[in-house]
């Protein structure tokens, strides 16, 4: 078996331009990992992610499911002695992974986040019933876990099947404007970076 190792010296810079955080400030004290509720459940953990970002180790970051287990609980961000917003870096890595098509197969949360996003973009509000239905259609194996809890919740009247829409026109406009501004900002940053390196590469 050949082991390949994709390295991008630009990973930390790209994370920085995306979310404004400087990954190089991390000195590996591992307080983030100590407090992370999901560090036990994947090969990578927050401090390893930070090191891999510094070193531009794309495969270490994106082949592992850790970033997709992150619940956004903000414990790492709260405790970092260097004041790094680690949760924001994890979010940025999720954005990069999605953009570059680097979502691992064992990350159902990546699919769920997109279903969730599409739901509130479509209706102005997130519709839980739609989310579950579409998830089952995409991941038929998930039906077992829904069946363990769904009927009990229905019997208790916990599940409201109806949807009250939000302001769908305003939502649509905000989604479109935010996407085009983000795209323009990224282009501007890329141009500035190219100018800085004197047009090398």
């Amino acid at each position, binding site marked *: 078996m050949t082991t390949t190792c994709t390295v991008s010296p630009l990973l930390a810079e790209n994370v920085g331009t995306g979310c404004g955080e400087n990954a190089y400030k991390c000195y590996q004290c591992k307080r983030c990992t100590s407090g992370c509720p999901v560090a036990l459940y994947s090969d990578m953990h927050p401090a390893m992610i930070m090191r891999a970002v510094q070193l531009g180790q794309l495969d270490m970051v994106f082949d592992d499911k850790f970033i997709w287990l992150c619940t956004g*609980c903000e414990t790492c961000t709260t405790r970092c002695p260097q004041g790094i917003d680690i949760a924001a870096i994890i979010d940025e890595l999720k954005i990069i992974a999605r953009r570059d098509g680097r979502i691992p197969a064992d990350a159902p949360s990546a699919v769920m986040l997109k279903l969730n996003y599409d739901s509130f973009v479509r209706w102005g509000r997130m519709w839980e019933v739609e989310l579950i239905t579409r998830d089952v259609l995409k991941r038929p194996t998930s039906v077992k876990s829904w069946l363990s809890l769904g009927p009990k919740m229905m019997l208790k009247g916990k599940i409201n099947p109806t949807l009250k829409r939000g302001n769908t026109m305003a939502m649509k406009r905000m989604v479109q404007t935010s996407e085009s501004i983000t795209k323009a900002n990224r282009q501007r940053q890329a141009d500035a970076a190219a100018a800085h390196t004197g047009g090398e590469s």
Partner: protein
Amino acid sequence: MSKTLAYYPGCSLHGTSGEFDASFRASARALDLTLLEIPGWDCCGNTAAHSINRLLATALPVNELAKVEQDMKLDAVAVPCAACYSRFKTGAHEVEDAETAADVRAVVGRAYAGGVTVQNLIDVYHDAVGLEELAARVTRPFRGLKIACYYGCLLTRPPKVTLADDPEYPTHMDDVVRAIGCEPVDWNYKTDCCGASLALTEQGIVDDLVSRILNDAKACGADAVAVACPLCQVNLDGRQSEILRKNSSWQTIPVIFLSQLVGRAVGVSDKELGLKKHLVDIAAVMA
């Protein structure tokens, strides 16, 4: 004196957590708070937006804040869902940066001047009503019911956004339950994560996290756990049947919304509080 707050229920309170919405509204009415729901509110972006479209994640809550400030002309909004609250506080914090504010302004279509205080469920009782006033309004006090106050993640973290007094060991919810006759217990998992939306995809992990939190609450003598977040409630209450299936010696513990505890204490009827919607029965501790 009656106070008026704008009210942002959010998607969960219109979905799986109807009893949170109902009990919050009823308790506010009993406490002379007028809640005005933001007309035509949109989703705050929840967990998904900030990991897909960062600018939209900031703009969505700021759009609601601009409505409160400029259309409703109110200076405070109650956001009882902890996840929505976090998005509102984060949005308000991020537009303090001029460059972000300019982009957000373009998305929202107008500027938000920063004139709205964002209050979570605990803030509403602790600050908008006030502890003395709350205690004075109690008609059906609890008689020393032992409560583990569970804050979870987003009511206090990150402190640069929430400005929480003590993000590792908050006490405001403890103060509120004490004011209505409960006895808050000193415990270790006040701010540990319940697994949040992993309940939709990684149930095994959530069962581990929930077991750990509830075991500590029980070990520290709690009769019930109080929560101020719809997702925490669904996880801590709902996963117990699955935990029991895996571990037959599991002792269930009721998980109650703070708004249900306060509502009962200030005389709201059981029906309005939605006491029958819980998977672990809460009738005994609410009697």
